[in-house]
């Protein structure tokens, strides 16, 4: 049970003078119950990677497999089924709203996957509950909600399809501090339910503090992979232009340089513990 990329590459505008290599030799594995971050700055190929996950784009080289079944071998029907199992939340997902009520918006995906009408209310209620959105507001217009609530409804509209994996492209951009924290707590609860999460972001701080494993992309190539601590060790040795360490991680690096033997971390409490011991 996993989604597996092996040596995947992808180009835009293939065969024209505008050809641009977006990804080169990317390998990664996403397991159920794992929260994995893909970190890189603008133009590193992150969004392309997201769209490859559920076959909106097909790789030009290499293989992508889910449960050892290659995407390239799937026919139209199977690809549709795949998309129901690998949910994809685009950047600014609230821009895809079209329905008159929250309920209708959320039942869009399950209806498309052929869920019988009598089961739709249960799906909607469950999805709303998962994202912590008040049930009594489900007859509101999705356009009349606050930014954070819109984002939650948008994510619920993908969760209502009951995917096994969730791929999110920059899910925290445009949210205020509170909305961002609530969203991250939501992702954590989804992981505890056994969902595999691929979290695409430019925010190294979020990735280091919340995710299990991190893949760093730079200009379409994977330059580092591992646990947050391993990534910190790597970035300390080989800094990447455009990827600045968050202040706490920076502090731990400076302390290390001053000769203290603490583990690199992005958690201020770990640093405090180090001093109290």
């Amino acid at each position, binding site marked *: 049970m996993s989604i597996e990329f092996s040596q995947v590459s992808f180009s835009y505008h293939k065969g024209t003078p505008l050809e641009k290599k977006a990804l080169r030799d990317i390998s990664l594995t996403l397991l159920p119950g794992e929260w994995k971050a893909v970190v890189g700055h603008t133009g590193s190929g992150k969004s392309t990677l997201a769209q490859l996950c*559920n076959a*909106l784009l097909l790789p030009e080289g290499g293989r992508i497999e889910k449960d050892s079944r290659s995407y390239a071998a799937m026919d139209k029907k199977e690809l549709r089924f795949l998309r*129901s199992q690998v949910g994809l939340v685009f950047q600014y997902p609230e*821009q895809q709203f*079209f329905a008159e009520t929250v309920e209708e918006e959320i039942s*869009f995906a399950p209806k*498309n996957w052929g869920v019988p009408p009598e089961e739709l209310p249960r799906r909607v209620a469950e999805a709303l509950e998962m994202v912590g959105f008040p049930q009594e507001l489900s007859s509101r217009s999705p356009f009349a909600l606050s930014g954070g609530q819109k984002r939650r409804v948008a994510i619920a509209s993908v969760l209502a399809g009951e995917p096994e994996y969730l791929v999110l492209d920059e899910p925290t951009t445009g949210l205020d501090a509170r909305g961002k924290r609530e969203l991250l707590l939501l992702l954590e609860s989804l992981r505890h339910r056994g969902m595999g999460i691929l979290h695409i972001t430019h925010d190294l701080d979020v990735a280091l503090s919340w995710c299990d494993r991190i893949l760093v992309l730079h200009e379409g190539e994977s330059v580092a992979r591992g646990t947050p601590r391993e990534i910190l060790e790597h970035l300390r040795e080989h800094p990447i232009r455009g990827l600045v360490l968050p202040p706490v991680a920076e502090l731990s690096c400076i302390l290390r340089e001053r000769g203290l033997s603490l583990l690199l971390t992005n958690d201020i409490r770990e640093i405090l513990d180090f001093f109290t011991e």
Partner: protein
Amino acid sequence: MKFLNHLTLGQYIPLDSFVHHLDPRCKILGVLFFMTGAFLVQDPRFFLFWGGILMVCAFLSKLSLGILLRGARPILILVLFTVVLHLFFSDGTPLWSWGIFRITREGIVGAARMGIRLLLLVIFAGYLTLTTSPMELADGMESLFSPFRKFGFPAHEMAMMMTIALRFIPTLLDETDRIMKAQLARGADLEGGGIFRRLRAFIPVLVPLFLIVFQRAEDLAIAMDARCYTGGKGRTRMHPLNWHMRDSGALLFSFLVLLFSLSAERVVF
């Protein structure tokens, strides 16, 4: 799966050629002459002459004939439809018939005439946009229409709207692509089914797209307001249009082609 990648209508190919350096006003008028001439052709055989003109046009602009012809691809279905209608449903001397269908001599001539006419119209229109950048085109239109300002015609505003519209086509295509993908990811079926089902299936694409368009329009209006845009009155331009001798020459040439086409056909055939 890039859905809207193949739109060639209205594309500009920047090259360093005689035609590219002509004044946009000259090109707009010249192309209008050509289109009038091509549209008034009666005998299909006379299209050979227009084929020759097309080759001269291609040569002078350094564009390959293939690129010019490709511009007609989007309306190929319309042309085919017209040709079929003319072919099977014209009155005249019957050559072949089956049920209500019959092919007449007049039908064949009419089909060829209408088909080639339509193709030529679109190819010449495409020739204009292939050799003239959208900005030049808008400037040229504004200048050509400015005499009508006396009668209250908003020449500058029209040109500004045209520029903005052209500028936003690629942006909107990108947005459409993104929204379509977002809805596909939620299981929307945008491909199968009959025409009404497909139209209905596009509601989840069209509603968000309209919202984004309105939002962008409002942002742009505010940005223009913030820079004190008040319309065309007293506005100077960064690249004023300059009419040269070669423009007069090219315009005269296209006018002569039109005259020749109108008169010669009756003499030759």
